[in-house]
């Protein structure tokens, strides 16, 4: 708790450098008492380093105060659609921070890291079971890197088939997350956007029309970003394979279907998962995550290096698949995140995973029902893990944007949902409660959103100026981009920082 001062404190204006006093320090460094080696030539050395100088207590206070200007999952409901913000079990953090795990060196002999490696092996097996795709590399650091891995694996397979030169297109639904087209482009492909049909699934006719010998792959998010099942995906898989292309699953929404249906069974060739979503590892304000890539036998030789394998001697090792696309990380991926995901998997088991997907879906539908009528619902069907409303009516009738609605929700004590995504829903409000929200929280959220819908009619200006009760008011994002101030020096504080000279 920071007791606020009278008046409005401009906390953001006081950075570390503004709090710095030359000569203060937060930790001491041991003195070297042995024989001294002369330093390298001065031309190789720096002669100044302008960093803030604070005592330990001051630094702790500064970052404690900063933490209090943040909202985490422990602060309350965090219904960001697609992001799957669920409770992060503390036990997972305890487990990953055990010295035996934390201090394992990435270059250690495999015999010296069997505890970690066996755990990763079992995670690999677990993910294979859950996805129905038997082969897995845990290397990708996040979803987007998992996508890159999957698409590059497809490139390698096509190359081995001699078709890489000809298959230069990847089809991506217009409801896809931005990482999908961006990944396809990074992997050198042209992106063709597939329109979403009335029912919220892919438009079969367009796919059939687009599928030809120039298509390398179709990337589909299942369930999709509308929170809906891709109807007929198992048949589309057949069409795609018939056309010689591969079917990629963006598995970031696995949490809706865990334990109930599997990508491999439906005909997907490769999928990535977002463990930092479905498997509850903390998102850290923007990572670290982990985006394992899972695939069929056919694509297995191309998996990124390393793959965890048990050898005949019972030792678990890191292997480079035969025709691997190569490395994605200097070492072996975000192992600390993978350990947490493993702990989560073991805490739940199959019944637990089904309970997760079941409750996640029930919660989303409950919210859908409670909000029904107050906001437009472009795809008015039972949903899976999330539901996408539209603020179009509020925009049209009261000149209130979804942006305003989101900001106002902050005043009601909630983190806002995802807004303006998926792009195909105008003024989108994409809400994912997840299974870890109690029904009372969903009811309170619905009540707040419905109250805001009323306010939009009665008192739109309150929404336009919101939030009113956050640590800071609505911020000027336009000027931020137009005249970027991106570091201390840009604020003109560099001279306030003492420079240490040799």
């Amino acid at each position, binding site marked *: 708790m920071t007791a606020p001062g009278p008046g409005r404190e401009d906390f*953001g204006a006081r950075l570390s450098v503004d709090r710095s006093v030359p000569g203060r320090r937060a930790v001491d*460094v041991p003195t070297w008492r042995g024989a001294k*080696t002369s330093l390298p030539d001065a031309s190789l050395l720096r002669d100044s380093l302008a960093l803030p100088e604070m005592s330990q207590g001051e630094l702790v206070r500064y970052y404690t105060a900063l933490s209090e200007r*943040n909202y985490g999952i422990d602060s309350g409901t965090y219904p960001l659609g697609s992001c799957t913000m669920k409770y992060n079990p503390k036990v997972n953090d305890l487990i990953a921070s055990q010295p035996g795990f934390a201090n394992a060196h*990435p270059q250690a002999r495999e015999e010296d890291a069997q505890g970690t490696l066996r755990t990763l092996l079992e995670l690999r097996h677990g993910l294979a079971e859950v996805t129905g795709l038997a082969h897995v590399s845990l290397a990708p650091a996040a979803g987007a890197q998992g996508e890159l891995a999957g698409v590059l694996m497809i490139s390698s397979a096509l190359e081995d088939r001699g078709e890489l030169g000809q298959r230069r297109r990847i089809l991506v639904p217009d409801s896809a997350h931005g990482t999908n087209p961006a990944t396809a482009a990074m992997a050198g492909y042209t992106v063709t956007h597939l329109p979403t049909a009335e029912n919220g699934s892919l438009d079969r006719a367009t796919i059939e029309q687009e599928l030809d010998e120039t298509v390398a792959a179709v990337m589909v998010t299942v369930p999709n970003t509308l929170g809906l099942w891709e109807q007929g995906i198992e048949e589309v898989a057949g069409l795609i394979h018939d056309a010689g292309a591969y079917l990629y699953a963006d598995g970031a929404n696995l949490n809706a279907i865990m334990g109930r249906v599997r990508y491999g069974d439906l005909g997907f060739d490769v999928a990535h998962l977002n463990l930092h979503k479905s498997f509850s590892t903390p998102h850290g304000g923007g990572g670290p995550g982990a985006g394992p890539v899972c695939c069929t036998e056919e694509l297995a030789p191309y998996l990124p290096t390393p793959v965890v394998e048990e050898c005949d001697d019972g030792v678990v090792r890191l292997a480079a698949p035969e025709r691997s696309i190569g490395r994605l990380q200097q070492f072996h991926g975000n192992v600390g995140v993978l350990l947490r995901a493993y702990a989560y998997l073991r805490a739940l088991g199959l019944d637990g995973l089904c309970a997760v997907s079941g409750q996640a879906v029930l919660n989303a539908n409950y919210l859908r029902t409670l909000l029904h009528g107050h906001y437009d619902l472009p795809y008015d069907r039972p949903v899976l893990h999330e539901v996408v409303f539209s603020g179009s009516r509020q925009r049209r009738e009261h000149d209130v944007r979804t942006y305003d609605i989101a900001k106002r929700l902050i005043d009601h004590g909630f983190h806002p949902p995802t807004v303006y995504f998926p792009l195909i829903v105008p003024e989108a409000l994409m809400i994912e409660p997840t299974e870890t929200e109690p029904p009372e929280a969903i009811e309170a959220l619905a009540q707040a959103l419905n109250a805001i819908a009323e306010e939009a009619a009665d008192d739109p200006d309150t929404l336009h100026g919101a939030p009113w009760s956050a640590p800071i008011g609505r911020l000027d*994002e336009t000027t931020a981009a137009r005249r970027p101030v991106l570091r201390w020096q840009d604020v003109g504080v560099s001279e306030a920082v003492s420079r240490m000279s040799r």
Partner: protein
Amino acid sequence: MSSPHPYIPATEADRARMLERIGVDDLDALFSDLPASFRDPAIDLPPALTEPELMALLANRAGQNASPSRPNFLGAGAYRRSVPSIVPYLVSRSEFSTAYTPYQPEISQGTLQSGFEFQSVVCELTGMDVANLGLYDVASATAEACLMAARATKRQAVCLLEPIHPGTAGVVKTYARGAGLRVDTAVSADEITDEHACLVVQQPDFLGTIVDLEPLADAAHETGALLAAVADPFALGMLKAPGDAGADIVTGEGRDLAGAPAFGGPSLGLFAAGLPYLRQMPGRIVGRTRELHPPDDGEPRTGYVLTLQAREQFIRRERATSNVSTAQALIALGFTIAVQALGPRGLRESAELCYQRAHDAARRIGALPGFAVPERGPWFQEFLVRGPMSAPELSAALSERGIAAGLDVTDRPEPEARDALLFCVTEATPDAHVEALIDALAAIGDGA
């Protein structure tokens, strides 16, 4: 399970009430879109564990790794550092650790203002104008640097100067393939041509040597290429900032200052560049701004937002500068706090302590009969050791004595690396471990 799992609040009674309100008979009804023939497959997972069982299992597993107190001289990309005690506490505060990417700045100022601090620290350490909020790790950051250099120069090849970390080189190759770039490796700056978008140089290099970046920057710039330095941010506590030596892009690995190696990750890719490249940069960037609607009697206060997002995938999609979305924000926070805790003097002193301790150990090892420490120039914390037997034999002999030797680098092309192990001693290597190593090497030398 009749009673709910501890992670799931809703009880059977809650569920019944909710289903009724939704107007469906059972949960299955909500899954009716899923194709029946594929529903409820057999999935083979071990049964659920309660928390005490889980903790016992994984304590056991952690114990199956080599003991953390075992002497360990591995470096080669992951270094034992003295992480200030305040770092783990602050980073573990769940307001930080359980937040999402700060899409709603008004309730994410903690993440955002810390991010601004991070960018500032990275700029200062690297001597660059702008930094992003971090990428996955040093290797993928370097790969992104190559892609950015290619975009900026419109060239189709990059040049890696050896010795460079094979993991870094590997990731560059993976990314380059997608982007259609050729990856050349060189042993001298002479090999750079006007086909190359950039020259990538590791500082200190993979074998520990401190590189004089200025002539390399000049060579690169002469051909119209950029210089991308892959620098250890800790070593930058004493080494010249690559920006001051002419680098156009600097990447680095931030993990070790922020915490334990954790078998290599979570890592933290640092990424900084000169101002001309700002709008070409991958990743998220925080900018400083002000409130839009201050009250009548007040000045607008200062706040922080994600900015320059027109580069990013969620707006630009296939035309984005990168596909990166989730990165390593929490590690960046730890890095920032660690660097600020050390401060300018602490960072310099730590780097020099590391340098002195490594050199002292090397000198003592080099003085042992049968051992040599081949040098390639001034070096920082890693050194080559050649013993009276082959490198794998020496490594095995140390392992038998409970010591993790330096990395076997015999297969490297550099002559000094022949038959050698790459040892690492840092400011945080316990004295007792160094003594144990020297004793063991002496004994091994006697026996040979």
